């Protein structure tokens, strides 16, 4: 079971959104990190065949997904970034409708919907119209519909946006448990969401992949590239123009900065422990 992307290219007019991307996804959670405009959503839309590709292939177990068509979409669960809804439908009706579109039997749909509503903590409001839901609740409904029908490939675009920490942990854990024997592609800005659950992390920048590896491997890859130093507040702006400055924090009454990059300030103290994915993000994707 593998999903391969080969030399995938997509242009919007003259703008290159995805540039000759090649990657293979295998079962497990693959976190996709990238700034806005990096090409994450374009890749997701190409994987769901929501937009046409300009070049390249997307293969599911060796067969192009366009050839597979309905069969591939039957294996797919998709949670888009935009919260599109029928505002006048209740969560239950919406999920039953989506189950119908996924070809689930009424009985199977009923069972799965009950289970997913429970997991997403929506059971008590299942008969409330979606228009009256908060952003976080809508996010959970979208997640629930993506997981309907036991999909083998789950594409989640910002699944925890708008959720409070408790809900995020709950959802994160559920996704983690759900990932067995499935390919889950999880695009997010929130590094901590994938830090603990992702098996692989893909770093994207301007339509190309700039890094790929396990979280530990990626963290390891920035070893020796992070340092901390004290800095006068008036010199902060100057430092930010010279280096990739991460966190700015107070320690013992002084202002400290954390710098990431191949070139580090000489006066800085190299950080060997406690490296994080934020450092990785800054290293690969920072300006």
């Amino acid at each position, binding site marked *: 079971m593998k999903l391969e992307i080969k030399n995938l290219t997509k242009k919007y007019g003259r703008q290159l959104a995805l540039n000759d991307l090649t990657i293979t996804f295998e079962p497990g959670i693959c976190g996709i990190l990238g700034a806005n405009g990096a090409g994450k959503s374009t890749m997701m*839309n190409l994987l*769901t*065949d*929501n*937009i*046409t590709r300009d070049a390249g292939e997307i293969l599911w177990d060796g067969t192009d997904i366009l050839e597979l068509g*309905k*069969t591939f*979409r*039957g294996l*797919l669960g*998709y949670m*888009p970034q*935009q*919260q*599109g*809804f*029928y*505002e*006048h*439908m*209740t969560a*239950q*009706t919406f999920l*039953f*409708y*989506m189950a*119908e*579109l*996924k*070809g689930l039997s*009424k009985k199977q749909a*009923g069972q799965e919907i009950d289970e997913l509503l429970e997991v997403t903590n929506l059971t008590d409001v*299942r*008969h*409330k*119209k979606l*228009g*009256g839901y908060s952003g976080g609740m809508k996010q959970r409904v*979208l997640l629930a*519909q993506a997981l309907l029908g036991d999909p083998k490939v789950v594409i989640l675009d910002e699944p925890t946006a708008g959720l409070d920490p408790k809900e995020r942990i709950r959802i994160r854990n559920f996704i983690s448990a759900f990932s067995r024997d499935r390919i889950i592609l999880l695009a997010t800005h929130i590094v901590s969401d994938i830090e603990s659950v992702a098996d692989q992390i893909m770093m994207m920048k301007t339509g190309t992949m700039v890094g790929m590896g396990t979280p530990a491997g990626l963290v390891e890859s920035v070893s020796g590239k992070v340092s901390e130093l004290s800095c006068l507040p008036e010199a902060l702006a100057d430092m930010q123009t010279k280096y990739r400055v991460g966190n700015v924090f107070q320690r013992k009454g002084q202002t400290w900065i954390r710098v990431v990059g191949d070139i580090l300030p000489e006066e800085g103290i190299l950080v060997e422990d406690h490296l994080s994915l934020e450092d990785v993000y800054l290293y690969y994707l920072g300006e």
Partner: protein
Amino acid sequence: MREFTRIFHNRRLLAVLLLIFLTNGFLFTWEQGKESYGLDLSPPPSVFISVGADGQMPNHGTEITGAACYQAYRTWLSKVRDMPLTEAGICLAQEKERLSGILELADLLETRGGLYGQDKLNEYREKFPELTQQLERGTADLAQLERDDADLAQLEHGDADLAQPERGDADLAQLERGDLDLAQAQLDYAAVNNLLRQITYLEGYDAYLSSIQANKENMLTFSIFNDPNSFSGRNILKTAAEFDVLQGITLKLGADGAVNAFMSFPLTDYLLLAVLALICLAFLEERKKGLWSIVHATPHGRLRLAWQRGATVLGTSVCGVLLLYGSNILLGFFIYGGWEDLGRAVQSVEILGTLPVLCSVGSFLLRYFFLRIGAAFLMGLLMWLLLLAITNVKYTIVILAVFLTVEYVLYTFLPVQSVFNLFKYFNIFTYISLSELYVNYLNINLFGYPLGIRSQSQLALLPLCAAMAAGCLFLHCHKKPFGGKDLLGRAAYGINRVCDCLLKRLRMLGMELHKTLFIQKGIVIGVVFVYAAAGLSYTQNIPVYSAVDLFAKQYIIALEGVADDALLEKMDRLQADLDGTIDAFEEAKKQYARGDLSYPQFDVYAREEMTAQLKIDALAMVRLRAENLRELGKQKGFIPWLLDETPYESVYGEAAQGNQQTAALVSILALSLLLAGCMAYERQSGIACLLVSTPRGRRDVLLRKIGAAALLTTVVWVLPNALELWGLFHTYAPHTLSVPLQNLSMLERFPLRCNIGGFMALLYGLRWLMLFGCALIVLGISQRSRRLETAYAAVVSVTVLPSLLYFYIGIAPMKYLSLARCVTVMELLVPGGGSLGAGLPAILTMVSACGAALWSLKRGWRI
């Protein structure tokens, strides 16, 4: 001011307000024409003139319209305006008698009174010697042209001749060419008649006032109502006291049309309500956008904003009243005149005769405008209060609708005598329909005391406004954005639970219908469509212009069947009977000349002969038709049938084209509005990308959407066509459905060999196909639209606008873009009498458009 600017900065709102204003002006003007400018156009009782549904009075080859009549009314009014009422009354009464005589006499000649009418003519000679001479001079002139002196002598003696149609027509023509303008006489008659009615009212007003005082004396003295402590007793005393101030009032004749029209146009009341509702709903914007908590937390977001909103409601009330009612009264004065009559006592206008207040028409109008503004302000505040009281935006609109419906039902349907009539009059609609307070004098029973509805409503206006304003200010300041009890929300949750149980059983097609009808509110369109379709006319009256035509129709009905030799033999027998009647008359003529028959006996023969002559002509027409059918049948190889074509003509014929076009247009509009959002809604709501990523979200969803469109097409198709068929068959048994189609003269050139039933099946089948084609085009356009508003505008522009421009404005090139023309089908099948070929281009265009729509749907169903 800033709040006022914010609200009116919304272009959509401004466009709707402008539309309301223009609609009001247009409908007000149209209503005046429709109501014949408030005039009674009926002819003298003895004249057989019919007044058409359009207010026109066809007669003597001329038609008089309300507008022309009102012009005559104004001319006559200017003649008698400055006369004392009694003198004006006498003058007008004489004129009415004279005009009535002219019209009766003209009618007598036109209806070919003949022998029967001669006596009547003599009566007129005695009654109106001058006029009769004038008319007979005209007849004599004709005689010089067409007859000899002997004929004139005969006419003078009244022996005959007027019975003959040719002579009758000539007389009428002469009459019209002569000294008298009959059309003007009709106009003058109607004008004088209406003025006389006005004068009768004005002259009788003193008597009316006296009768109120006399009633008080009589009833308190003698009647069972003489208990001064009962409601009836108190009511009589109150009425008499109120009307006592009018004693000795001087009423004056004038142009009442503007005031009458102004006071009798209730649509403006509802349009003003709509304007106020739109403004109050604009206050909800912050709640809809989730800004309520932010606004509530700002220093000026409470009391100051509330004051600004109160001022906005007041400003809207003032502007709304001035624009809507102001335009009405100005249009009224423009149409009817009457500026110069504003100084008259208000009771001079009959509609305001029961207003017990001493004032002039002008001061009444001024006062009315102020009260209107107050009433509008009150309505606005009440709506705002309701919207403030309910936290949930969705329910506020529902509650407002329910509140207005309940109030309307109570106001409209509760009887005046009901013990609950308090609910009828202490009702927001009392202030909405403010005119009613001034055109009806009414005291209601409040614990045994008569309560004047008008005075109490006026008095209550200011305190009510103050109370409402205070309530609004209080609620606006103290209502918290969060944390209130949501009882309505709980009830709605319960209802949703039940609905969910039903909805989860639906398959994809059911869900598509649910989305169209309930989520996109198509059900409202459906209800309006049913109402509109039920109100349309599907059959057109086919007039019978002469007695001969009428007899021919009767013969055809009697002889209906195969046009074979047996039928011709039957006709021969009928002809022989009629010839016998003619012979009998000839014999009777001789006997009358010999003195063997009295005049009444002879008159019977004469009448029978006259009828027989007409029947002979009619029978000749029927025979000709039968022979033509036999010939055509031989040529084209169908069995010739003689049948009454009127029912088919009344539904499918040229006369019914207007009906068919309107029905098609209404159907297309309904279908367009139902389906315009079908695809666009998926895009606007952002759900399309999710749908197309599911296994059944592409082809299957598209097919179900097309299926739902087909079902809705069928529903929209069924109603008008079923009503059309009902119109055809409820008076006419469907026994001729098996008759070969070419026996109908309007379809004799139809190229396909089939019977009438087969043709009807083809017609209705094609209508469904064409309507379904429209549905596909609508879906195709909807597919190309990303927003609902764009979809609705684009769909209506393509499907409805060309037909409107072609049918109602007459822009000929739009014919080729008119979908309604395709949906009526008849015009395509039988353009100008029968050629399938001429309809083919339109059919092909439609098929191409459908193909393009399907292609667009298939290609475009992606984000």
